[in-house]
């Protein structure tokens, strides 16, 4: 088994879900509570990675962060290294690609928080930010875990975007799914099968955990 690819993949997936927890919370909060009439425009953009072929998304990200775009040039000047075909570039693409998998469960959880509880918190003098952390987050734990785990699992299995933006650099951007593809191309079916099984077992385990938690079959999970 290619342990380097496995390490790269898990590092990518962990950093992606961590970043999405930080970026996804404010986006989900805004999508849930904003009364802006054109909100659906943003909602559609967030959901876009669900339907767009990864190659299309990857292509545009590649163009956007490449040396011909202002963003790409600025990054290359500051960091001293271009974004495309680097781990950082791949991370950036993964975050965009998994955005709906984090934001949508977050937003659903926030929507289910009774507005009256939020109003009670406001009248007790707590700012919107404090209300968010003291009331909304504790009431949304299941949705927050679901979104984080789903974005993790989704990043584990990404292929098209990795190929477009990350390329196939051993130890840097070569992930498990690319490795499996390469092994199959080289007719190493045994090695491909081992890695594929690992990915299958991990993904299934992660989804099992999420679905079990949402059905509250885990007594260990605090009841709300």
């Amino acid at each position, binding site marked *: 088994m290619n342990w380097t690819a496995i390490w790269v993949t898990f590092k990518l997936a962990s950093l992606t879900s961590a970043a999405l927890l930080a970026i996804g919370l404010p986006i989900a909060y805004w999508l849930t509570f904003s009364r802006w009439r054109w909100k659906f425009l943003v909602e559609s953009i967030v959901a876009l990675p669900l339907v767009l072929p990864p190659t299309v998304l990857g292509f545009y990200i590649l163009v956007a962060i490449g040396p011909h775009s202002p963003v790409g040039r600025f990054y290359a000047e500051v960091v001293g290294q271009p974004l495309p075909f680097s781990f950082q570039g791949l991370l950036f693409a993964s975050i965009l690609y998994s955005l709906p998998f984090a934001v949508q469960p977050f937003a659903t959880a926030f929507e289910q928080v009774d507005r009256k509880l939020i109003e*009670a*918190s406001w*009248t007790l*003098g*707590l700012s919107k930010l404090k209300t968010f952390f003291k009331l909304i987050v504790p009431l949304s734990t299941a949705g927050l875990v679901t979104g984080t785990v789903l974005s993790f699992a989704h990043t584990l299995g990404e292929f098209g975007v990795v190929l477009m933006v990350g390329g196939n650099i051993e130890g840097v951007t070569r992930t498990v799914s690319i490795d499996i593809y390469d092994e199959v191309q080289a007719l190493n079916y045994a090695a491909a099968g081992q890695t594929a099984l690992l990915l299958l077992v991990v993904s299934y385990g992660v989804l099992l955990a999420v679905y079990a938690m949402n059905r509250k079959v885990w007594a260990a999970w605090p009841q*709300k």
Partner: protein
Amino acid sequence: MAAEMIVNMTKTFPGRPPIRADFRFPVEAATVLILFGPSGSGKTTILRSLAGLEWPEQGSIRYLSRTWLDTAANMRIAPQDRHIGYMAQDYALFPTYTVAGNIAYGLGDLPAGDRNKRVDELLELFQLRGLETAKPRELSGGQQQRVALARAVAPRPLLLLLDEPLSALDAPTRLQLRGELRSLLKQLALPSVIVTHDWAEALTLGDIMAVVSGGAVLQVGTPQDVFSRPADAEVARVVGVETVVRGMLADLREGLATVQVGDVSLTAVAAEAIGPEVFVCIRAEDITLEPVGSGETSARNHLRGVVRSITSLGALAKVTVDCGFPLAALVTRSALGELNLGIGAPVKAACKAGSVHLIPRR
């Protein structure tokens, strides 16, 4: 500036008639204002506007020396900065916090020692000892109500806003807590605004009462005044109780109370023990008018009097009879003719003991 609350606001929800409120009332340490009206009348919207949870599109709200809303000056004070206590109809207790956690929730700015002391005081005052670590879902309705109230008053607000504080309770608990709530509010010496559609609650709890119907404030006055002297037919219809007089309990045995109103003695059904001072409330449609000298009926109260005024209300007429106190009766126009009723005519008014409602006055 005089200690007053001045409200002048218009709030429109899409597809519905606008809700307008224009009233002012003097505020003292423990003044309780009742916003009284049927459901859908707009009273809750007015309360929520006072809390800063609804933004009227036009108008101003002033409380004591503070301006909470002034749309002309583009001024809107957020609920966080109004220093109010607000209790929603279903209490909105925080399910992830314990009883003590709920009460301490709004005390985050206090040092831990002061916070614990304040929580302790409130647990004592609201009889919640022993329930500190319970979660809201483990509590009875009455306990939940007390926790919600304790949480609302914990940060020492300037004004307490209660939306139907008793409506989520079952009838016996409601009766019991009605009296408790009144003495608590007086004990806290905290001006309050209470929304209710229950006239008994309005009489028990209120010092001043604003009648809200069809999205407008129709009358502001003491509850007794509003009930016995409604400003117009709409107010009379909304409040539904036309005769409210003060009385003294003279006797109470086997569920029947004898009440003295001036020189007149009335019999009423009293389910619970009540204090000596009461409001005697009688709905006009529960009064029957009979010619003087007619025989006895099953009604326990027969009062001789003289017709003082007759107001036509379409097919019905409201007759006010002076029988030691003004008593309003609702009769058909044909009955008016058959009984030969005119101003100054002698008449006998009858009503059953069950139609005489006694509300304790504290």
